[in-house]
């Protein structure tokens, strides 16, 4: 057994396991153009299989390996076959008994038609587990498949088509087949929002523009955030460099204390200068000055006692004189700031 074949078997096992799991969870419902309603239980989720009336399918050989490569070829494959409309395309590589083959099942479908049908059947998106096309889910059945009292699905050149039941001989019931066969992985995505006021192209343009702006603003936000972080670091550095206290309360009290010292010292100097600059005449001089606790004791030798009044007047401009006496041409004054 070579390695590739081993891998294929493992893939198939995984696929089957997945199918079994899903089969156990969800009921499968076949939807035809004639389907009027579907009975669903509360909170029940279902797999929906659409009849060939809802899609165009071709079994073709494509020189490509991957689905995305195949997808680009699909519009040209259906060119001239489809009516006017907006179609979605899907391609699945066919799986034969010996693994994957070069043949592809390619689909074209109108989202609006399928979406409208789901709306008519009052099936919410939340109710739907997965959507399939009959071709993928019933491809392995070779007999005619009875879908209702009048119609059956039969294979014609590997493609399932609907025929009157009367034209078929032996049939198998579709629900029985769904119960026995598990769902494939060939799910279909339906764009349920085809009737929006703006086109898909415009939505894409708006979305891209918004994403671009979001990117720009996000970048700006991140840059600003970093700048803010730097500013906080800068602030911490200032406090560290200048040995500032941590709280603003402590900082204010420190500043207040220092400013108080500064202003009182400035005042002290200014007042001392003022007192010493008393307008003395020739022969007059300061005998002594004592400054302590913002109080001054000054002694001045005067030319004559009446000069005391002039000096007093000068000092009174800026300082207050607590007491003053003149004895033997000596003026003694007690001054406060």
């Amino acid at each position, binding site marked *: 057994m070579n390695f590739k074949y081993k891998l294929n078997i493992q893939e198939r096992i995984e696929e089957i396991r997945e199918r079994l799991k899903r089969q156990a969870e969800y009921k499968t419902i076949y939807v035809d153009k004639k389907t009027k309603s579907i009975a669903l239980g509360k909170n029940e989720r279902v797999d929906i299989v659409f009849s060939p009336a809802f899609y165009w399918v071709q079994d073709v050989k494509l020189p490509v390996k991957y689905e995305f490569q195949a997808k680009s070829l699909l519009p040209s494959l259906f060119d001239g076959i489809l009516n006017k409309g907006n179609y979605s395309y899907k391609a699945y590589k066919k799986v034969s008994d010996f693994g994957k083959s070069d043949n592809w099942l390619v689909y074209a479908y109108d989202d609006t038609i399928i979406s409208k049908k789901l709306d008519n059947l009052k099936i919410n998106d939340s109710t739907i587990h997965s959507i399939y096309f009959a071709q993928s889910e019933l491809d392995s059945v070779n007999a005619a498949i009875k879908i209702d009292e009048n119609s059956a699905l039969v294979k014609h050149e590997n493609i399932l088509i609907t025929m009157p039941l009367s034209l078929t001989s032996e049939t198998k019931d579709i629900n029985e087949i769904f119960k026995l066969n598990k769902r494939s992985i060939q799910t279909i995505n339906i764009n349920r929002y085809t009737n929006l006021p703006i086109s898909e192209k415009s*939505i894409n343009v708006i979305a891209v523009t918004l994403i671009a702006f979001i990117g720009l603003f996000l970048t700006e936000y991140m840059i600003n955030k970093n700048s803010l972080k730097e500013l906080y670091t800068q602030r911490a550095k200032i406090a560290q460099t200048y040995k500032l206290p941590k709280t603003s309360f402590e900082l204010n009290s420190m500043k207040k204390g220092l400013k108080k*010292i500064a202003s009182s010292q400035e005042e*002290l100097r200014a007042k001392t200068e003022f007192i010493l600059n008393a307008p003395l005449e020739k022969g007059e001089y300061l005998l*002594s000055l004592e400054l302590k606790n913002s109080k001054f004791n000054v002694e001045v030798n005067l030319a004559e006692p009446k000069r005391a009044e002039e000096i007093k007047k000068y000092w009174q401009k800026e300082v207050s004189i607590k007491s003053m006496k003149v004895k033997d041409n000596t003026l003694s004054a007690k001054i406060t700031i």
Partner: protein
Amino acid sequence: MNKINPLYIIALLLFLLLLLVYKNSSMQTKLQTVEINNKNSLKEAKEIASLKRAFKSENRNKTALNSILNHPQLKKYNSQKEVSNSRMSITLENIDKKAFDTLSSKIFNSTLKIDSFMFERVSENNITVKAEVLL
């Protein structure tokens, strides 16, 4: 199946964009505030640092006072220094007028914390000075 309405996605993107615009604008305001605060803090810190240097540095005050006493005009006088817990006092006796002018101008023009200052004319040309500064 495409279960989300593209318009919801557009609305979500728009909401995200508006949120980011709002966040950015708040961040800008915050940045400006912090920047201004930092500038003020720096200014304040410099001011406090200079005040601290002037009035809160014991060593600096001692050095400043010693450097005054080491001035050429004062050096020749025998100064008495006394250092107690938080203050330092100096006494210079019988100094001439020039030396007195130098000493008083140096003390009063410095940032020393003057606690007390006293001078007495002892003779026509001689003055005794006593100054006490806080450390």
